[in-house]
């Protein structure tokens, strides 16, 4: 065990020894309050009040902020000053409470119950300036811890200085090191948000202008080198095609008629060549079945027909087929 002893220190010069006369002795680090703090912390911790799953996210843009603190302390001034500077478009609702003494815990609990009824509050800052462990004690009371836990609104705790840690800090959704820090966490900087909006608008404008410029030059391109020219060219080329088609049609007709003439002449010549009489006059004769008139080209055909019509160049005769003769 470590202890802190208060007393008088004396030096025995003869022996070179120090001597201490102790009048108060206490356990080092852990006083009554400290013990109570540890006990409550352990109890609420076991109940899960500090769990991350209970932590609410802070709104990105809080427009009505309740500040639960003493209306006369430095904390409220710091918070109001910081909120007004960073985010002047917000409304600050001070909920005055005592922050030390026996009545403090009860008032804080009551304030946390009232705020949700006040309407449209986005965020609660609960805190006070620095002080001794006794001064800050209200923020280590179980009732306060439970009220913070039960409050449906997001709560930033800001109790004392950076090194002061209270039960309230564990239960709150966010712990800020100081009241000023709480206000910094609570709201964004209006200039930053404004610049973001302006930059977005600028980007929109730039983008739309580029888009429209693109469209405009496309239209001009179309007007100049494409659309009108294309239509004119198309009409012209269609006209040409039309003329050409007609010309071609006419030329084709003439050609075809001429070609038909040539072919006709050919036929006439060929027919002339085919004229059997020209052959007959050269000493040939045509044999045909006398009954049917069909041409007979073989010996068997002649034997079958029996009677043949034999045509010479000057006329025909009826002849009877008697028998095959060997040559």
């Amino acid at each position, binding site marked *: 065990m470590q202890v802190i002893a208060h007393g008088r220190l004396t030096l025995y010069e003869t022996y070179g020894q120090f001597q201490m006369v102790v009048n108060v002795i206490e356990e080092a680090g852990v006083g009554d309050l400290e013990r109570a703090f540890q006990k409550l912390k352990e109890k609420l911790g076991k109940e899960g009040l500090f769990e991350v799953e209970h932590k609410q996210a802070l*709104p*990105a*843009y*809080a*427009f*009505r902020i*309740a500040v639960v603190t003493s*209306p006369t302390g430095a904390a409220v001034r710091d918070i*109001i000053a910081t*909120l*007004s500077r960073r*985010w*002047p*478009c*917000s*409304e*600050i*609702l*001070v*909920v*005055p409470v005592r922050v030390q003494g026996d009545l403090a815990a009860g008032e804080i609990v009551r*304030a946390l119950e*009232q*705020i949700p*009824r*006040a309407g*449209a*509050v*986005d965020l609660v800052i609960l805190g006070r300036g620095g002080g001794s462990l006794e001064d800050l004690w209200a923020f280590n009371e179980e009732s306060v811890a439970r009220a913070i836990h039960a409050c449906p609104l997001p709560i930033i705790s800001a109790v004392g200085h950076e090194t002061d840690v209270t039960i309230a800090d564990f239960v709150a959704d966010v712990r800020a090191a100081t009241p000023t820090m709480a206000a910094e966490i609570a709201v964004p900087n*209006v200039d930053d*948000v*404004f610049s*973001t*909006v*302006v930059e*977005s*608008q600028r*980007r*929109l404008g730039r*983008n*739309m202008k580029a*888009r429209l410029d693109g*469209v405009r030059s496309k239209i001009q391109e179309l007007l100049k080198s494409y659309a009108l020219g294309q239509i004119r060219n198309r009409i012209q080329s269609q006209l040409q095609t039309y003329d050409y088609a007609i010309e071609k049609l006419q030329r084709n007709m003439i050609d075809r008629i001429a070609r038909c003439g040539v072919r006709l002449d050919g036929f006439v010549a060929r027919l002339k060549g085919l004229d059997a009489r020209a052959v007959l006059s050269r000493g040939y004769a045509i044999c045909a079945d006398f009954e049917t008139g069909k041409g007979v080209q073989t010996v068997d055909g002649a034997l079958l027909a029996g009677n043949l019509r034999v045509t010479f160049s000057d006329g025909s005769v009826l002849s009877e087929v008697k028998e095959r003769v060997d040559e």
Partner: protein
Amino acid sequence: MSEKSKNFEESMKRLEAIVTELEKGDFSLEESLQRFEEGLKLGKSCKEILEKAEAKVKTLVEDSEGTLREEDASP
């Protein structure tokens, strides 16, 4: 969260989304123009909210009957 806070956050998100969408350039000219106009409107209303007034400070007080009242406490 208050309606105002919710609406403002939604407007900011929408504005950002529109800028990103437009820069991707997937929209037809007509759609782009619609988005552009929507974006400008959102930006304007956001700016109006941001420009509005100095921070108002009020004090919440409860009377004996438990009714809550807000008193002007601007310094």
